[in-house]
């Protein structure tokens, strides 16, 4: 166990653990890029990373990159192609896990990155879907990374950019999305997972130093704990060493 880590680093490590060896992963920007790098260098040496600009990589990029189109993410790619080809693999069901972030998420894992306060007269205009709506719809498992604040974890998002379990239960399937849905939501306080027939997000593991009541108080719906809820294991020495290689300058500290 490693003792010197930041919350963001814990989030990266928790995200890395969601990637299984040999999986094809749709890697987003920012934290998930680092998570992919940690996973590849620890428990998932055969994972494959896809990037929606049109890249596939085995080894993560060398050094810090700010966008997936940066030259260090191009050199050494194992496939350079177009957006339709990589996102087509997603729609064909060939992508095991996909990462997205979000400004707002609700108890059924629906995510809003478009309009806060309705689309006709938005209070806040967010950038929009990018590829998030596609990654949420078509990945076999969706992994979301969020900042845990009460106004972000809401009972119902005002606009569903990226479909989670929609109205809960079988409603995602009924809408025509026959696979996928959020498998984990990694926040700065905990990991949430869908549970029960309604697929409502439950507390699955608390990060070190967090307690249930405090996390629940920062959640916009009545948060329930999953059976077998545990603590998020702190980063191991191996995980931190891998993260140091991916992020030598401590950008994610």
């Amino acid at each position: 166990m490693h003792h010197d880590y930041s919350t963001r680093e814990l989030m990266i490590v928790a995200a890395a653990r969601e990637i299984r060896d040999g999986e094809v992963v749709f890697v987003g920007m920012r934290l998930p890029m680092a998570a992919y790098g940690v996973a590849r260098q620890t428990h998932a040496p055969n994972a494959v990373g896809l990037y929606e600009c049109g890249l596939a990589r085995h080894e993560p990029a060398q050094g810090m990159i700010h966008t997936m189109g940066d030259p260090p993410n191009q050199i050494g790619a194992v496939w350079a192609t177009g957006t339709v080809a990589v996102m087509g693999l997603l729609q064909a069901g060939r992508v095991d896990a996909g990462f997205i972030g979000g400004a707002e998420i609700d108890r059924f894992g629906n995510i809003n990155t478009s309009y806060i306060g309705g689309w006709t007269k938005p209070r806040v205009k967010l950038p929009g879907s990018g590829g998030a709506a596609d990654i949420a719809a078509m990945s076999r498992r969706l992994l979301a990374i969020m900042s845990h604040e009460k106004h972000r974890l809401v009972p119902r998002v005002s606009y569903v950019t990226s479909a989670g379990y929609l109205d809960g239960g079988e409603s995602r399937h009924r809408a025509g999305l026959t696979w996928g849905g959020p498998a984990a939501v990694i926040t700065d306080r905990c990991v949430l997972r869908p549970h029960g027939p309604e697929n409502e997000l439950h507390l699955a593991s608390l990060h070190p130093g967090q307690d249930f009541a405090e996390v629940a108080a920062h959640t916009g719906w009545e948060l329930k704990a999953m059976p077998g809820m545990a603590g998020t294991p702190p980063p191991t020495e191996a995980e931190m060493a891998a993260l140091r290689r991916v992020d030598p300058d401590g950008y994610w500290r």
Partner: protein
Amino acid sequence: MKDKRLSLEQAVADLIRDGDSIVMGACLESDIPFAATHEIIRQGKRELEVVAPISDASTDMLIGAGCVGAVTGAWVGNVSAGLGHNYRRIMEGAARGRLRVNDHSNFSLGMALTAGAYGIPYMPLRSLLGSDILRSNPAFRVERNPFVRDQDDPVVLVPPLRPDVAVFCVQRADPGGGCHHWGSEGVMREAGLAAERVILLAEEIVAPEVIASDPNRVPFPPFRVAAVVEATAACHPSPMTGVWRRDTAFFNAYHDRSRTPEGFQEWLEEWVLGVNGHAGYRARLDERIDSLRIRGKALAAPTNYAAE
């Protein structure tokens, strides 16, 4: 072979008209033709429909300068810095009616351009089911899959997009419109085939024989290209594979300074309105541009096209 070379000023003046739908780079984060973004602003084009598969901060600049009437796109912001302040200002204020937003995802936009490129009447998708994009953009339809009889199998139908203009940065081009592009392609091929008029901003002009030496590196045929502009660092501050690093500090500075309308105007004056074309912009960047140039060599393995 017709010589299609034009100056940046002439290409923008002749080939981009008020009200046109226009793709400003299609590689998402790399190869964004900011030199053309700036020239469009200088020439005061109006009511453009920006078809925007993430063109980093280009769309936000055009909106702030008053050139845009509609955005048909998946994302408008500043990739490494966050939200687009000009976009927010207009959409969150009383003037929001002046900007029409046709929401897409990256995939639906790519598929709409694919349909436009290949004459496909409409493109059925499974992605976007359940998303409110289908409600805020009425251009999409949801229909039953006619191949599935015994159950309801909804599919999203995406109408084609055929932009009037597409502008791309490429590593090299010949005077007749042949070009090479490498690195991730985004929706460049589809946009180049779908658009009525393609403008290339070429880092380097080369002989047609150089392009013909490697026809697999050509994204679309020369006959689809309307103009070739020689313009070094036309993508700055976005990166170009093998040529330019990304100038993230420049994106961040734009983000900070565009936080207020006055700050944006000052930025615009400094980097767009008050410079003498793209050469003036490069001169203002001064030594900064040298520090962004990729100087290493990592050459592709030799590839032989000989026939005998």
